[in-house]
């Protein structure tokens, strides 16, 4: 069994396996709206490899972080536009 870490997604506590990307953690939490475009349209991960920038969320206060590239760390605070 992989080690577990606890993160906050929009203020709610989630326990995820160590090594999970933030994108996967947010999806596993049942959420697909990661951010909103300039015109307000919902957006979520597309490429899963850092190219499309669609999966951006706020991670520990840093806006526009690509969630598909960042592994979850214990105590991490993630904010989506959802």
């Amino acid at each position, binding site marked *: 069994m992989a080690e577990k870490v606890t993160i906050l997604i929009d203020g709610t506590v989630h326990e995820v396996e160590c090594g999970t990307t933030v994108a996967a953690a947010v999806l596993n939490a049942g959420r697909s709206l990661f951010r909103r475009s*300039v015109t307000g349209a919902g957006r979520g991960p597309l490429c899963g490899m850092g190219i499309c920038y669609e999966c*951006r969320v706020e991670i520990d206060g*840093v*806006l*526009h972080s690509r969630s598909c590239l960042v592994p979850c760390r214990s105590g991490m605070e993630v904010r989506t536009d959802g």
Partner: protein
Amino acid sequence: MSGETFDVLIIGGGIVGAACALEAVRSGLKVCVCEKGVIGAGATAAGMGHLVVMDDSEAQFALTSRSLQLWRDLADSLPVSAEYQVSGTLWVGADDEEMAEVGRKRSFYESRNVRVEVLDPRQLSEAEPHLRSGLAGGLLVPDDAVVYSPVVAKFLIDRANDAGAVLREGVTVSAIHPHGALFVDGTTVSAGVVVNATGSWSPGLTPGIPVQRRKGHLAITDRYPGFVNHQLIELGYLKNAHAVTSDSVAFNVQPRQTGQVLIGSSRQFGVDDPAIEAPMLKWMLERAVEYMPDLTGLKIIRTWTGFRAATPDSLPLIGPVEVEDGRLWLATGHEGLGITTSLGTAELLVDQILGRQSQIPTAPYFPDRSLREDIHHG
């Protein structure tokens, strides 16, 4: 189209040509506008869209402050996508010398009924928390604004079009003369008044006019709402901007309605290539970071360049020039202020065409004030 005759033929569909077209058609003239590419895609799409009252000469003040009044009159009818926002200008003073400039500016503006407010270092950092500490203060001009200029150019053209102006988009003029223009496809258009409003391209159609291309770099970040609240400009800017011989950069940062931060700008003469020059861009961004260290945490999503149409005395050329067989009209040479002064320019131009009295003196912008070379059409 060959054979058709207009009162006014405007070459160039940037914000200046667009504003002139609307003013002319509203004054009852039969107008045609020709644009080689897309409306507003020249310098108008490249610029920062800062609407600013300037104090570097009486004439610059008169034209910019009259224009700001016209912008306020227009504001209510602008579409939301024009992003008109009265964010104010905050001139940032780094040291005592620049605070002396703040004092000078303050009395200049106040004596001409422009509202201003002097900020001490504490007020400055309250107004803009991301500026570095240790700055000397600033001057806030709260009624200055920002706008997204290509949308405004399109809006002005559409309005002119609705009022009866003819628009020819995607057609390049190869030569102009006092009674009309010749297009690259061989067609012609005749007009009583022909206006060269092609900005940095204008010397190509009217050789000999004192207009030089002055390149600028810009960068825009992703959305960081609230990161910057006012249009910020360093006061060293004026010293730099007046050095017409060498390259310069200045801290010039603007909040966009989307939350994006627009970062300018550089000035270079003698470069025709629009490509991004990494050393210039780096220098410009380093200057911005000197004033706002936290900018390093923001993501830039796009960089680009544009060309200003510079004149030797920094004033635009508005009015007629005599050539062999008549007169040609100019509305060009707006350098770094053409978004601001487009509306005032249109008013001055059409006043002159119709022999109307203007709100401000017209003479400082007459093209022949500084003509050293022969003007001829070609």
